[in-house]
Structure formats: structure tokens, C-alpha cells
């Protein structure tokens, strides 16, 4: 019984301790001119869907709910954001060549089509980020058209 108490105290101290570890926040002022929404004529419902479902990890600005500021959740999230931005950053869309845009659009379509994006671990908490069947078709159609217009 005493051992359990000690372990509990150690864990609690560790939990409180890691809250003071610095973490990089993915936040910036303003939206660059190269942003996907600024250079493309995106219908408002699709715009809203992309903003809610994709921009947290695929842009320079994450909307942080309170629990994402708690460790170790914040670390976990930070890793995903870093990886997500390396794959695709909507804020830097227009700095890509046509070839690269077509490549990215192909991947966007595949990932949404197969349900791999948005990630399950993300939609588990962000219910509103999940795509309905109708939204999947809508966004894919938009992306297909954009790819063909390049």
C-alpha cells in the first residue's frame, strides 16, 4: 500500500513537472499571400471544412483547445503538426510549382478518399473535423477540378 502511494506521488510530481517544459507553439500572425484560400477561389463550405479539418496540422496556425496545452498531449500534438506541415502546408501553397501542386492534390484526394485524413486520433476529439460521405465527395470533386485546371 505504501509502495502504491509512493508511485502515485512520483507520477504526480512528474506530471506537474513536465507541464513546465517548454513547448513550441504553432502560431503566427496573419496569413501569407501564398495561402491556398487566398490564391484559389474556394467555395465557403469547403473553405470552412478545410479550415476546421486540415489547418490545425497543415498550416502555420493551430487552434489550441485547453487540453492541447497539457503535457504530454502537447508533445504528441507538436509531433503531428511538425510532420503534417512538412508534408503539406496550405499557407505556402502558391510557392509550389504546378508539378508539385498536382502531386499534392493527388495525395490530398487519396488521403481523404481512403479516410486516412483527417487522422482518427484527431477526429476522436475534434468531432467537427470528421468528414461525412457527402463532404468527402464535395471536397474531392473540388480538388480534382483544381488539379485539372493547373
Amino acid at each position, binding site marked *: 500500500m505504501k509502495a502504491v502511494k509512493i508511485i502515485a506521488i512520483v507520477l504526480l510530481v512528474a506530471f506537474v513537472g513536465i507541464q513546465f517544459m517548454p513547448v513550441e507553439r504553432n502560431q503566427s500572425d496573419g496569413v501569407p499571400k501564398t495561402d491556398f484560400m487566398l490564391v484559389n477561389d474556394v467555395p465557403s463550405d469547403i473553405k470552412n471544412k478545410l479550415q476546421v479539418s486540415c489547418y490545425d496540422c497543415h498550416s502555420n496556425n493551430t487552434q489550441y483547445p485547453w487540453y492541447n496545452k497539457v503535457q504530454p498531449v502537447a508533445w504528441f500534438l507538436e509531433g503531428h503538426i511538425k510532420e503534417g506541415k512538412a508534408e503539406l502546408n496550405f499557407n505556402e501553397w502558391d510557392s509550389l510549382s504546378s508539378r*508539385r501542386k498536382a*502531386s499534392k492534390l493527388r495525395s490530398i484526394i*487519396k488521403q481523404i478518399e481512403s479516410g486516412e485524413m483527417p487522422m482518427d486520433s484527431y477526429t476522436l476529439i475534434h468531432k467537427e473535423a470528421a468528414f461525412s460521405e457527402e463532404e468527402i465527395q464535395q471536397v474531392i470533386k473540388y480538388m480534382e477540378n483544381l488539379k485539372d485546371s493547373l
Partner: protein
Amino acid sequence: MKNLKKNIALMLLLAVSFSNAQEKEKMNHNHDKMMTMKGDTKSEAILSDYFNLKNALVTDDSKKAAELGAKLATSLKAFDKSKYKVEEQKELADIIEDATEHAEHIAKSDIGHQREHFKTLSKDISDMVAITGAKSTLYEQFCPMYDGGGSWLSTNKEVKNPYYGNKMLTCGKVKRTIN
């Protein structure tokens, strides 16, 4: 009269030597073009890795395809565009950047994803060859069934489908012979 004859003769001589020189220049030009269009050691290394990767996909070997994807990414990064024309360099840089990303993804994905990336990669490699050329004859092959149609390059005329492997090994046809 004698002068006129002399002049005509001189002009003829000039004309002949001029056209001759032009012909020579043309030949030189062709020669240069052929030299640059036959690939270089770096582009040949890329092609060799690409064909090995394609063969791994033909045999449904995802693990080997992943290793070869990583190898291809390395040879893509080693590509030297400096000996190409300025306008070609820009295009080549773009192609290489795109292809590298696909090769890197192939290095860390399951076979379904590997094939998705291989489709775009094949387009990149084909565009690269359009500029660099290749030492051996290549065949652009096409399978109409894969994802709205997918092409790939092969050194062999016989179709072996990298998108379906064993499932539909011979699906596809030769679309174009390069060189």
C-alpha cells in the same frame, strides 16, 4: 569580261564554302545534341534505381520496394543539373524535388501507397528522360485500369505490371518507344 568570270567564280566559291560551313555547323550541332541526349551517369543511376523499384513492385515485394525507394531518393539528390541549359535546369530541379518526395514516401509506406506514389514518380522520371535522354531504349507502358490509367517506364518491351503485380501481371500495353 575576264573580270566578270573571275567574280562569278569567286562568288560561287564563296557560296559553296559558306553552305559547306553551315552544313558542318549543323552536323556539329546534331552531334552535340546527341551527346547530351544520351543521359549522364547521374541520370542513369536514377533510372537504374527506378527500374529496380519497378521490378520490386512487379513482384509485390513491398519491403524491397521500400529499400529501393530510399536508394532512389539518394540518387535523385545526387543529380547534377549544372551541365544542362538554364531553362532545363529549372524544370529538372522541379522534377527532382517532386520525385524525391515520392521516393521518400515509397521508402516508408505499404504497397498500396507505394504504388500510388509510383504513378506520379513515373511521370516525373519520364519527364526527366525527355530532357536528359537515356543510354538504352525505353518503353513507356500503360495500364488503363489502375487509378484512371497509370504509366511506367521499362527497359523491356514485355509488359509486367508494377501496379497490380501478380494479380494482373500482363495488363497493359506499350504506349511509346523512347530513343
